[in-house]
């Protein structure tokens, strides 16, 4: 990795669906270690932006560079193996497996060889990683629960856990507190804060308290474009941002 260069960079990133341009000519730069919040009204193109970054959608134009390497048009699994991991806005877990097996499956995903002849529990490093993540997201005591039996709040925590256990260089969190009550939101935010110290993160979030408490820098999206970028307090004071959110002309 180039020490000085940005971790992630997009140049003129654009995605059109027919006549609708969801992401328009976005130049985005992220330094290693940064915690960046991406905010904006619904339909501003935040999730589409994530889908472009993770290879779920091919861009209509523009390029994506990760650690200086062009990753535009790589399939999702290759992007993931490069070190970009994400959570999904709509919880997407291995519902029929236990909490432990969910995290375990993600924790071993970086391996190159998957031995069919040994018992899975013999992979000590994967076990260790799994326990570490379970500890971090606070689901250690529920490790043997089937995920389908978990509360929504716990599922959101596990959603993050899955992304974390791949030891990503860049973590994309897509509305981690979506659908959570105030208490659960606080818990998720606290968990994110713990690992945010050592991880580069882009977080899409609607809860402004969460955004303000986590982000070093905030990027505001509106109608597929970057409207504004800056430290939290300046964003908070901005007239433009207020207009976008409240729809004042």
């Amino acid at each position, binding site marked *: 990795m180039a020490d000085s260069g940005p971790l992630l960079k997009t140049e003129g990133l654009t995605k059109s669906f027919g006549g609708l341009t969801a992401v328009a000519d976005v130049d985005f730069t992220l330094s290693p270690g940064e915690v960046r919040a991406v905010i904006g009204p619904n339909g501003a193109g935040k999730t589409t932006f994530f889908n472009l970054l*993770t290879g*779920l959608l091919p861009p209509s134009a523009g390029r994506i560079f990760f650690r200086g390497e062009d990753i535009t048009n790589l*399939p*999702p*699994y290759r992007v*993931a*193996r490069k070190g970009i*991991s*994400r959570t*999904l806005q709509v919880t*997407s*877990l*291995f*519902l*029929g*497996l*236990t909490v*432990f*097996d969910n995290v*375990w*499956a*993600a924790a*071993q*995903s*970086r*391996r190159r060889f*998957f*031995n*069919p*002849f*040994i*018992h*899975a*529990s013999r*992979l000590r490093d*994967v076990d260790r990683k799994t326990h570490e993540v379970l500890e971090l997201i606070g689901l250690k005591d529920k490790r*043997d629960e*089937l995920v389908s039996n978990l509360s929504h709040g716990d599922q959101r925590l596990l959603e993050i856990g*899955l*992304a974390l256990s*791949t030891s990503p260089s860049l973590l994309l969190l897509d509305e981690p507190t979506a659908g959570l009550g105030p208490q659960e939101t606080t818990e998720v935010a606290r968990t994110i804060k713990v690992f945010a110290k050592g991880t580069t993160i882009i977080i899409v979030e609607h809860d402004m308290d969460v955004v303000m408490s986590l982000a070093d820098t905030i990027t505001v999206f509106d109608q597929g474009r970057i409207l504004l970028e800056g430290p939290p307090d300046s964003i908070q004071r901005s007239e433009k941002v207020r207009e976008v959110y409240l729809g004042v002309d």
Partner: protein
Amino acid sequence: MSGLRRWGFLLSFAVVLSGLIIAPHVLGTFQRVLLTEILIWGLFAMAFDLVYGYTGMLSFGQSTFFGFGSYAMTLAILRGGIGLWPALLLGIVVATIMAALVGFVAVRIKGHYFVIITVIFSLVFFFWALNWTWLTGGDDGLSLKVPDLRLGWWKGSLYDPLTNYYFVLAFSVASFLFLRRLVQSPLGKVFLSIRENEHRARLIGYHVDRFKLLAFVIAGALSGLAGALYSLTLRYANAALMHWTVSGDAVVWTLVGGTGTLVGPILGTALLITFTDYVSAWMENYKIIIGILIVVVVLVAPQGIAGVVRQRWMAKGASPNGR
């Protein structure tokens, strides 16, 4: 906990295996033949369970590989005049190659279309086998003179019912142990995550199509083995073995016995084959009863027999993973 489960498995395995070893000495000819068939079809159903129960692909194409295993081995002996072991190996290899070719196309196709494409592949190969009578014997099939069985200095014959039984038993048990280890292995965990959520598996970095193909090919190889064992036992191969309804039988056996359990498919196979054998003797439309049975199972216990047992066991507080 894990120790308890491990001992539980070893104990039940030892009991069942002893039972199977003693069985042919206790049973009559009819039951022994039935049991041999159950072991062969049970192996076939287990292979299907790997594809469906563990990787989530509802394939009706397994009969293709069963048929290719059977035909490749039969033809190798009939036309090639080669020995038992090389012929058996050839049967497995041909089935594996066919599974790789079919799988290469099929695993890319999602959802219901996957099911349809596997049926289509089955039908294509079925009609091919039906029409190339000069090679396959078509509907009449091919009869086979089984070569001697040589194991080192020991020489036996599969015409001896006991030898035949133990021959089949050895392969079925070995396949069961292999599959059991596989589904608990790191590779097996990848299959499971694909079954549960393909999209998420991709996002955490698994090349999903490649793993699906791998599961498909392993199952194809074992289906080929089952096909070859079938032809060695019945000294016979015909086109009907390739028909997709043969795959359909494995689907039914596995659903009734319990998907994703390995033991379930064998139980289901044993139950339904025995049932069919006895009931069809005095009732022509016995399939109606099987149909009703399937509906009942799907409604009352969709997890199948082994699934229900496992659930009871888990409800007692044991770890579902033995870890």
